[in-house]
């Protein structure tokens, strides 16, 4: 056994080590991340299914056109929501999936719900809910997978 003892270099050590006190509780944080991931996954999957089965894709395309978005975007958006939701639920590259979903919700906030005002109970639905949803995807991007995610199973760290 060989011991190497070094000064802690504040530039090279990770931010967690530099902080005098940890800012997150590592015992519970992974489960909080999982809760967010599963919630986002179910919501995205539900919205994807809604577009495909309830509104149908041509119906969604019509709706997109009615709010001033290109109608053909309904197809990739529905696929992205469905697939993104499943990947988030499984915890496969949650970070990048969440980042990929952000533009959809960002556009939804401004283009779809922007005109309905702020309160989410407004006629047509105000933008506060999609805004929170969009921010939640960014939060998920910063947090990563959390507990019970499959990324680590697929890509074992060596």
């Amino acid at each position, binding site marked *: *056994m*060989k*011991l*190497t*003892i*070094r*000064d*802690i270099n504040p530039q090279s*050590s990770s931010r967690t080590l530099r902080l005098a006190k940890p800012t997150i509780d590592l015992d519970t944080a992974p489960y909080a991340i999982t809760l967010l991931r599963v919630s986002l996954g179910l919501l995205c999957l539900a919205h994807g299914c809604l577009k495909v089965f309830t509104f149908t894709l041509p119906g969604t395309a019509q709706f997109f056109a009615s709010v001033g978005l290109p109608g053909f975007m309904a197809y990739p958006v529905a696929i992205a929501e469905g697939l993104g939701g499943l990947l988030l639920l499984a915890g496969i590259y949650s970070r990048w999936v969440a980042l990929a979903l952000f533009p959809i919700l960002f556009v939804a906030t401004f283009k779809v719900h922007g005109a309905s005002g702020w309160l989410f109970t407004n006629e047509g639905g105000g933008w506060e809910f999609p805004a929170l949803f969009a921010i939640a995807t960014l939060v998920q991007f910063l947090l990563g997978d959390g507990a019970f995610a499959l990324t680590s199973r697929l890509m074992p760290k*060596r």
Partner: protein
Amino acid sequence: MAQQPKPLVLALEAGTHWLCTCGQSTNAPYCDGSHKGTAFQPLALELDTPKEVIITAP
């Protein structure tokens, strides 16, 4: 080919840290008293200031 175990990088606070040398500790790399009955004694590592300690085997 067997893989070399990764060096263990620890960020340790100032103070005394007892490191396991017998290999019996369930709290590796720290001593948990499991060396009782073996010929090994834990290694006491005294640090005045917080340090980064890298443990490499062998």
